[in-house]
């Protein structure tokens, strides 16, 4: 057993499901589990200032099935719970604002062989609501599995009409919309801008803070770009819509954005003018950031502390663009290499360095104005953030040294 293992590297299944539910207005989630599935939502409440899972007034979007609390919880599980759990589904399906109801199990409830999917489906059928049971993975799945499972369930169940795809419309599936804040809104705007630069229209992104009816408009896409957080959902939608599916990485950093754009353009058969578009965009991005990168950022060491391997991989690419060396936590020597950039959620015991809160969960950084991290706009904004944090850190160090003198 490794006592130094980072707990955030073990973020579990339901955390990802919660993110997905939060990303779809009108979505509710019934978790067959104890009341503490509610307190789990407080994590998302701190990460997303616009979180809709647990409003102080009104209806919680996360609902548990616990009949009792505390020590009686465990003993109550031996009884016949079907009528009580069915009643929970019936009640939630009857909410007028409920567009889709997900169903999942909490860890020890998975052991009970409870007919959760059947119970949920029966309530959905009786009420006419869309119900999406998720596979029981709370004991083994990661948060990324949870998010992907919710996207895949939605992709399987959402009513779609085939044959409405337009040649110039592309859908993006598997985007991790972990919060409804201007970083992600900025990303979505940047994706739209990139697609429009290729002469393409962007269908609703899965997931992107859009409700069910808007998500269903993906049927207008003739090409689906599959991002890492929902590959299975992308394949399902492609199959259902008879649309071509192309897998792409995250367009984060100059090089990865170029790769992304080329992949999309090639798959869409819109290769003409791509080089000119990319040249223009890259030249402008480099011109805007050159002094920041060369005078402040480059030559440092970055420690990527992200529980999200896809984002970590993309940031490693950005580091290369910026002339940053990447290293494992605790290895850079601040005496000889300067303070490292610690990119990701703040960790206890990560050592000294310049903390750049990024990814999920991110409690410390909540933008008010658009601050994307994807595409060229995202590149500019990341350079700005890194520069600001590095200089603020150094100014703080300077003033501390002055105080000591």
């Amino acid at each position, binding site marked *: 057993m490794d006592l130094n293992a980072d707990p955030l590297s073990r973020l*579990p299944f339901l955390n990802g499901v919660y993110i997905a539910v939060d990303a779809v207005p009108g979505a509710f989630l019934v978790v067959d589990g104890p009341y503490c599935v509610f307190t789990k939502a407080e994590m998302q409440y701190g990460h997303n200032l616009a979180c809709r899972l647990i409003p102080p007034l009104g209806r919680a979007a996360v609902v548990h099935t616990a009949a009792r*609390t505390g020590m009686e919880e465990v003993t109550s599980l031996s009884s016949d719970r079907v009528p009580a759990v069915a009643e929970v589904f019936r009640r939630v399906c009857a909410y007028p604002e409920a567009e889709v109801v997900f169903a999942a199990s909490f860890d020890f409830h998975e052991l009970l062989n409870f007919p959760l999917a059947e119970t949920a489906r029966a309530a959905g059928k009786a009420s006419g609501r869309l119900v999406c049971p998720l596979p029981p993975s709370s004991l083994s799945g990661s948060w990324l599995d949870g998010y992907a499972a919710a996207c895949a369930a939605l992709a399987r169940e959402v009513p779609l009409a085939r044959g409405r795809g337009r040649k110039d419309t592309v859908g993006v599936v598997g985007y991790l919309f972990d919060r409804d804040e201007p970083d992600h809104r900025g990303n979505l705007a940047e994706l739209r801008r990139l697609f429009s630069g290729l002469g393409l229209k962007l269908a609703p992104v899965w997931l992107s803070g859009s409700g069910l009816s808007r998500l269903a408009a993906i049927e207008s896409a003739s090409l689906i770009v599959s991002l890492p957080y929902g590959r299975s959902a992308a394949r399902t939608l492609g199959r259902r819509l008879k649309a071509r599916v192309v897998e792409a990485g995250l367009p984060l950093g100059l090089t990865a954005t170029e790769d992304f754009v080329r992949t999309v353009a090639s798959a869409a058969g819109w290769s003409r003018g791509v080089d000119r578009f990319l040249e223009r965009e890259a030249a402008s991005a480099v011109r805007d950031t050159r002094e920041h990168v060369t005078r402040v950022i480059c030559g440092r060491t970055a420690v990527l502390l992200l529980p999200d391997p896809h984002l970590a991989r993309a940031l490693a690419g950005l580091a290369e663009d910026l002339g940053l060396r990447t290293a494992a936590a605790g290895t850079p020597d601040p005496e000889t290499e300067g303070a490292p950039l610690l990119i990701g959620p703040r960790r206890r015991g990560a050592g000294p360095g310049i903390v750049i809160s990024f990814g999920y969960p991110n409690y410390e950084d909540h933008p008010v104005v658009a601050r994307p991290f994807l595409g060229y706009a995202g590149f500019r904004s990341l350079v700005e953030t890194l520069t600001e944090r590095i200089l603020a850190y150094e100014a703080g160090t300077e003033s501390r040294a002055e105080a000591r003198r």
Partner: protein
Amino acid sequence: MMTGFPTVARTPAGRQALSLPGKAGLRFFKSLLRRRVRGWELDCLAFSEDGVEFSLVRGAAMLTFEAVPPGPGARACLLSGATLGLNLRGGPETVAEAGELPDAVFRALANKGFSGLRSMLVKDALAHAGGDGPRTQTRLERYFRIADHTPDWWKFVYPKNDFLDQEARLGSRCVKVNHGTWECRFNTVEHDLAGLRFFSDLGSDEPGGLLDVQTGLDEGDVTGGGSLRRLAEALETAVRELRPDCIQLNSTCLPELLGEDPRPLIARIERRHKVPVYWTSKTRDSGRSVTDAARRMLSRIQFSRCRDPRRVLLAGAGSPWSRSEAVRLVEGLGLSVAGFLYPEIAPAAAPGIESCGSVVWVNPAGWERISDEPFLERGFLVVRHAAPFGLAATEAWLRRIREVLGLRARRRFAPEADGVVRRLRPLCGRWKAALIGDETDAAALASGAAWPGFSVAGLLAEMGFQTRFFVHGTGKGPVGFRTFGFGAAKELDRLLREEADLAFTHFNHDPRLESTRVAGFCETAFAVGIAGALRSGLALDRLAAFRPFPAHAGLLRPWT
């Protein structure tokens, strides 16, 4: 007695609080029984103005009695006389089984009579041990258990549950081993950023012990029967690599469901490594678990024969700031503070604990389920009284400490208290402070029932705030305070806009208050002692004075 504390009308408690005896009271009661009741041991004892409840045990047998004052109530008892009545709980069969015991008990107590008993017990009683007063539903019962809060649009009071096994910290060299899945681990928010919390609780000032270790059970462990093996590995690794003074093992629902019993593992670790393991579990009362941990820790200390009652441990003293104020106050009585108890339980770490003679509770609210027995058994005098929130309560708290520990007054705090009132009243008097809820919530906020342990309304009034109640439904509020009734959301909205600058709420960000530009606060806004009253009053004044969007209130999103 100190004089000069300003007094204000406090809402009468209107409840029969249950008290526990202190060291002297317990000794007195036992001595009464010892003379006439042989072979039976006193198991537990509690009393109120209306009765003295106690249980006697012999082997597996337990009998519970209640002594009541003379009068009509006593005449209906199993045994009654001119001085008291005595009941035996459990019906005719129990009475038959008890044989001569009730008579013997009655004779033992009748000489002193009910008033004599009570006057001896009350001398060093451990007050504030729960009560039958207005009890508002907890956050667990009212918020976490309910998914649809639409009908609760009028509800602001959601007191926190006391999960003592989670709060308790067994010292700076303790490792906490959580036996459960990562899914379970991430049901607890891991950040401690005040602005991002859902409920406005205080964060933890101390990160706790060495490290939290998670066994991280997964599907393979459960289906393959490796769950206990995983726990054994975690305990062994924790002991070997972290070298803790002790381990707190916290087992969660999943191993409980599997029917795991970790006691053989615990015994092995303790035998092999000489490191005590304190086990808390979902199926044991957390108060009992924490009490047991305290008892075991105390049993390892070699106390000196000569104990100094003036050397004290302060229990439930709260934040570092509150602790320093409590220390200042008790030092004014001539006491010296050896250390602190709860949430940390590490008495051996207190310097000079061997000669330490007293435990003084600062704020026992939320810790009621922890018994003082381990300390009484080890010869400590214990002072458990309502917390010193506000000037009058601080006076009462100091008086109680003097009474129980037999001290003479030293430093006079009255001039300082007068100064606080003179400073606060003109500032706080400008603001309307609203306490909102149904009759039960209002009564709890006025009376200082088990929660919150002090009268919020009384304290606000003492500081000079224009204190008022908005009561849903009946519109009946506590006596002595201005009360407004409301039945519809629009009416509450109007009251908030016209009759409140501050309002009590447990939500950190309450949409009702934010849209009406009312500043929210809850019991965490108050600090103990005289300096605490000043600090709290000034903080609430600042909250009311600096509310956002003063010129753009109309642009805020309505909640109704």
